């Protein structure tokens, strides 16, 4: 990915540079932090026939799993951004969420054992595939893994607050940007500057707004000095004011 970096170009942190191997976890691994303290390294996982498989690259638009197909694994994003979406019977697409490096996709498929949505790569994406029967077995043996799984499930349920209720567009967008910022920061990326991989149509769909509204509101936030947007690069310039704007959605 970075083989042809010209002299003088400064490498930005990329989780993919820190690739795990047979004995080490990737630094972004969703489970590495709980497995290691519990004394389970990757060799032990393999002994348990636990399938942790690195998959990718997926290109923008490629599907990681399909809505309706049988549930077999959950996926942790290693690099890139994955969108989940449901296609309604009318053919209309509904964006459910965006998953950043270190985050897990597919948790909502555990019951009824079918994926309720598509997972689509928004840019070049690498994932870790955790075979679910094997992970469930592991969770039964290692309480910390089970705990981590519950945490992930709980976080997944809590993520929909921005869509509930009748909040004005600027509050929703402020909340959306703040949430992304916090999730990037949690993975060691900058909290105030990040790349917006998702298209404005996807953002609009996710927040149940018109695409024009997304742009109009972002332009207004920019004019007010709260954010700055250059192409896909976003800078949050006034976190306090953004939080103030978004507070009703972020109890």
């Amino acid at each position, binding site marked *: 990915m970075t083989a042809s970096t*010209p*002299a*003088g*170009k*400064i490498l*930005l942190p990329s989780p993919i540079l820190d690739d795990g191997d047979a004995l080490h976890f990737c630094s972004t691994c969703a489970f590495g932090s709980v497995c290691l303290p519990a004394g389970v390294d990757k060799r032990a996982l393999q002994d348990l026939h636990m399938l942790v498989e690195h998959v990718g690259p997926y290109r923008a638009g490629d599907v990681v799993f399909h809505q309706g197909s049988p549930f077999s694994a959950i996926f942790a994003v290693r690099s890139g951004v994955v969108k989940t979406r449901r296609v309604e019977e009318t053919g209309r697409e509904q964006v459910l969420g965006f998953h950043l490096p270190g985050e897990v996709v597919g948790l909502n498929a555990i019951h009824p054992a079918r994926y309720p949505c598509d997972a689509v790569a928004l840019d070049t994406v690498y994932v870790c595939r955790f075979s679910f029967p094997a992970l469930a077995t592991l969770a039964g043996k290692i309480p910390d893994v089970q705990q981590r799984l519950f945490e992930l499930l709980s976080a997944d349920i809590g993520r929909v607050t921005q869509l509930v209720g009748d909040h004005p567009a600027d509050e929703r967008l402020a909340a959306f940007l703040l949430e992304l910022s916090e999730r990037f920061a949690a993975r060691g990326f900058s909290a105030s500057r990040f790349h*917006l991989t998702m*298209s*404005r*149509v996807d*953002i609009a769909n996710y927040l149940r707004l018109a*695409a*024009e509204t*997304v*742009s*109009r509101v*972002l*332009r207004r936030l*920019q004019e007010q000095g709260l954010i700055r*947007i250059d*192409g*896909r690069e*976003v800078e949050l310039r006034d976190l306090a004011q953004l939080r103030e704007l978004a507070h009703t959605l972020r109890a």
Partner: protein
Amino acid sequence: MNPALPQFDPALIARYDVAGPRYTSYPAAPQFHSDFGEAALRTFVQASNDDPIPRALSLYVHVPFCLSPCFYCGCTRVITRDRSKAGVYLERLYREIERVAPLFARDRVVEQLHFGGGTPNFLDAAQMSDLMESLGRHFSFSRAAEREFGIELDPRFCDGDYVRMLAQHGFNRVSVGIQDFDPAVQAAVNRIQSVEQTREILQAARAAGYRSLSVDLIYGLPKQSVAGFSATLDRVIELAPDRIATYAYAHLPERFKAQRQLDAEYLPDAATRLALLATTVDKLTAAGYRYVGMDHFAKADDDLVRAQDSGTLQRNFQGYSTHGDCDLIGLGMSSISHIGRSFSQNARDLISYYAAIDAGRLPIARGLAMSEDDVIRADLIQALMCHGTLRIPEFEQRHALDFRVYFANELERLQTLVADGLVTIEPDRIGITARGRFLLRVIAMCFDAHLARNAMPEVRYSRAL
């Protein structure tokens, strides 16, 4: 942000009189290639719609016809007295508009519109009205006062009624070709145009409320003399346009067929060319015009000067602009588009342009996707051309690079220019000196990666002066 006042040094300028691109784009048009086609263009358009705040739009419409050939011309144009040819062309242009406009999100407003040629006023009033009506229907025109709707006019085939008709369609800028009022020069270049014809158009435009009037002059034409050009400059200053472009004539008869009709015997020598430029700078500066850069002068209260002062000036295909951060859509034969990090150009002759439209395709013939390195260098060249200075720490942060490592070779190449007093290199900035301001092109060439790789003789550019 106010660049150093230009200082004219003939000896220095003569030494650096080399061929090079004008950097209305980087990479320059000779780098475009035919591998970049319709599919690639559509991908870039989609990506530009997907930005959280999509850029506003700028339209360029090319009218390739001229009623009479000017012998100095290097533009892509078709000489004809047959006005019906416009109808045939417009039919294809409408189909291109219908095909291109829906690719762009409807809430992206057109902030800038420019008609160039050829001769845009080859179209009669009815044709022009229909065309503007079609553009307004297929695109969302900005209603803001800052919108720039400009057109190039040939005063020999135009009148006050036409200028007022254009104003009704929203045009607020006009650019009028003069080149030189000297009768001997006009005869030599086959362009006889009186001061009165020119004044009529400019006065009509002023009365109709146009915000900016611009005129074009050319130095280095056959039979030009300092005395004759000096008199032209006096007439031009009396006409009081807001902007004056003074282009250097580049005699490239092997590339531009029209120029083969010029009698090269009467071309001014290098010393005269320099004297012509020196006279231009002296007179226009004395008359209160500010040298913006490259070929362009503007009154101190013009938008261009204000943009330069506030750091928002941009370079584009029309020279300099206050709306350079738009996505540019080129419509018509040979027009260039600049969407996101791509450049593309339509077919450069009528037969290919018509064939593409008739086959249901976009008429794109060539283009390129900018590499990351292209983006970095384009930004750098833009900063030097527009503001005469580059702030290194901000540039390093913007592009995540170590300037002195990334541009080690270029900084070495610049040393000659530093020694000649054209450029200063300080820890946190590169600055263009007063002496260097007339040699922007040479300074930019030091950073042009495509020039370094290409053997110069293959691609012909005009000279830096």
